[in-house]
């Protein structure tokens, strides 16, 4: 069995930040990711981030990803790509399948789970037709693979993901035929929403997709208005000429590894559903296992990076790599930046939901 001090699972913004922080403190870190490239969702985020200077506001996700990777290289962090973590046994043993060929067990003193989240689906007749996809998948296609998923798009969901991907699809040359939002109000940041609206895209609030039609791919979609109980109103159906339906209906934390390991769960609807309980230091109910990023509740890349720093620092501190004072200073600074991110109309709710998790007594 191989041994490492800290194993970080997931090389997105949270995992990279956690690995960097633990390595800076002096711990030997192994960073694993099931994908062939590190960076998680950062490299498809071609838009500039929000927040203040400390949060690298104004910098594009792709550039942040490049910076983090360069730093990881400088710190000599060991990275395994195409490495799937299949389970955690006895609180310390991580089972990893490398290159779909070789099973390896790594015994870790500390494990940081930064597995991210998965897009929610919406089920309607025709939802399994080619052409129906997650908005994040469409974003990967245009921004990473440079493939336009279709010409005529229906976006389902007006949150930040739906709006940003709509805008990027427009930039990539697609025609966004409509954005539908089941809620009576739009969900995304105003500045992005306004950009999409100025481009002439119609928005339908209190609407959802009823059906997709087509023989071997999407050829049209029917949308319908919803009443105040979210039930379709007969007679309000509209037929849209689209070949692609993007679903931006939120994300669910990828918690399987944590729960299979035995971490205690907690329900947090605002943060995406079942999440592992964790304390302020990002430790779970299993003291060797920490969390960072969307697995601990769906937020955004900037909060994921702060959580990564907090988890990486806490893990290093628990291994004796930093003294109490250094830890307190570093942790408080990260927490302060985090509180700034979790403020305002969108942030405050997340801040409350996070406080509820941390404040929840175990068991």
């Amino acid at each position, binding site marked *: 069995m191989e041994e490492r001090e800290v194993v970080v699972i997931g090389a997105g913004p949270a995992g990279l930040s956690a690995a960097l922080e633990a390595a800076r403190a002096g711990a030997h870190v192994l960073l694993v990711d099931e994908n062939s490239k590190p960076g998680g969702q950062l490299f498809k985020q071609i838009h500039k981030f929000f927040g203040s200077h400390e949060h690298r506001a104004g910098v594009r996700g792709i550039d942040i990803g490049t910076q983090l990777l360069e730093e990881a290289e400088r710190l000599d962090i060991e990275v395994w790509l195409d490495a799937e973590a299949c*389970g955690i*046994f006895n609180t310390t*043993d991580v089972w990893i399948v490398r290159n*779909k060929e070789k099973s390896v*067990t790594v015994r870790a003193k500390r494990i940081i789970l930064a597995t991210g989240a998965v897009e929610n689906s919406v089920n309607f007749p025709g939802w399994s037709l080619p052409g129906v996809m997650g908005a994040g998948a469409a974003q990967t296609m245009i921004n990473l693979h440079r493939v336009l998923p279709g010409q005529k798009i229906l976006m389902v969901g007006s949150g930040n993901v739906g709006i940003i991907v709509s805008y990027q699809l427009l930039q990539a040359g697609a025609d966004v035929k409509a954005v539908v939002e089941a809620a009576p109000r739009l969900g995304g940041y105003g500045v992005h929403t306004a950009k999409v609206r100025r481009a002439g895209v119609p928005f339908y609030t209190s609407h959802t997709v009823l059906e997709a039609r087509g023989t071997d791919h999407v050829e049209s979609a029917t949308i319908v208005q919803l009443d105040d109980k979210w039930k379709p109103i007969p007679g309000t159906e509209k037929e849209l000429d689209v070949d692609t339906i993007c679903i931006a209906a939120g994300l669910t934390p990828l918690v399987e590894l944590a729960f*299979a390991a*035995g971490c205690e769960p907690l329900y947090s609807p605002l943060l995406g559903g079942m999440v592992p309980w964790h304390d302020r230091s990002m430790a779970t109910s299993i003291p060797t296992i920490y969390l960072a990023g969307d697995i601990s509740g769906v937020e955004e890349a900037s909060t994921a990076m702060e959580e990564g720093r907090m988890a990486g620092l806490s893990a290093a501190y628990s291994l004796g790599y930093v003294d109490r004072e250094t830890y307190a200073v570093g942790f408080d600074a990260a927490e302060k930046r985090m509180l700034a991110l979790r403020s305002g109309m969108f942030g405050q709710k997340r801040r409350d939901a996070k406080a509820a998790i941390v404040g929840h007594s175990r068991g």
Partner: protein
Amino acid sequence: MAGSYDVIVIGGGIIGLSCGYYLTKQGKRVAVIEAGGFADGASGACDDMILFQSKKPGINLELAFESLELYKSLVGELDDSLGFANYGGMVLIQNQQELEVMEEFVTQQQSYGLDVKILDRKEMLRKQPFLSDRFIASTYSPMDSQAYPFAVMHKLSGKGRKLGMQVIHKSPVTGIEKDGNGDYRVSTGQNLTYTAPVVVNATGAWAGKVAALAGAYVPMEPRRGQIIITEKVPAVGETNLWTAKYLVSKLKSGFEIDSTEEEKRLGLGFAFTRTEGDSYLIGSTRESVGYDKRTTMEGIRAIINQAVSIVPVLKDVNFIRAIAGLRPATPDGKMILGEHAGMKGFYTAAGHEGDGISLAPITGKLLADMVCGTTDARLGELSPNRFAKDAKEVS
């Protein structure tokens, strides 16, 4: 006080829900009290077989026939496909010794009315072209079937509720006592008390513990069964598969089977069934590890290695999940179904080990008949009182 009923069923797995459903259908006011949530126990972590070929001629095989008929009628009654399918099954034979035992077994089963036969190597490979070279023959029965446990439980619960059955989750039973009227008072972790003249203990691997709360004796051992689930793949052969190895060792005591220490410790046997969702469930272990129902790397690895050695094409298939459940095992391998002597109204319906899905409908139906006053002479051999002597030794 949380309510009084005609019958309280303790345990909301597939057996408890089946008991509750058939009792409700007979007009009883029923509460099903479950310690956890929906499908939290063994019924939510098992395979989906309605298997005939593994059963010795006798009460188990007889009840499996009746259960299959009930499944067919439940498809209409519960208005759902229930994932019911009839792919048939083959038991793989790898040497002459196994073949002799299986030939004798198949003849017995045939005389009991089971449609089963031995296939030679060529016939076997026609149905299962991807098998390893080492198998010389197999059995084949077109009767082996399957049902999707989650759908069955969901529909038994849903239809039962429509008929007035109550299903109460997150309520671990902490006490069972008699009150002044001779009714049972069942108390739960929420400090709630439910009363009824009849209590059915359908708590699977926990049946011994729950029976003890009422002062009854049920010898029940948990056996951990680990199973892996593959990604969606095209069909691998026509039927579901098992190997003869363990069947033979169960049928012939003293039969030397060639197993490693690890295989023995894990109780490893091969079961390979295609699900409604086009993935495969591959099992299984049979381990004595108390109430620990975690999956283990050792168990998962052993299942994978065994599966690849039997069906080599599986080496290119991903497994997506591993599950483990605690199968309730009785000392004689037969379920416990009946009223406890000297405890009027206290029944146990548990101990199906690997046959819970197969036998759930018939267990519920027979239990309901019993509670409603119909006796079935065959069921004497399943009575909890067959262990009365052991109970005295224990106390």
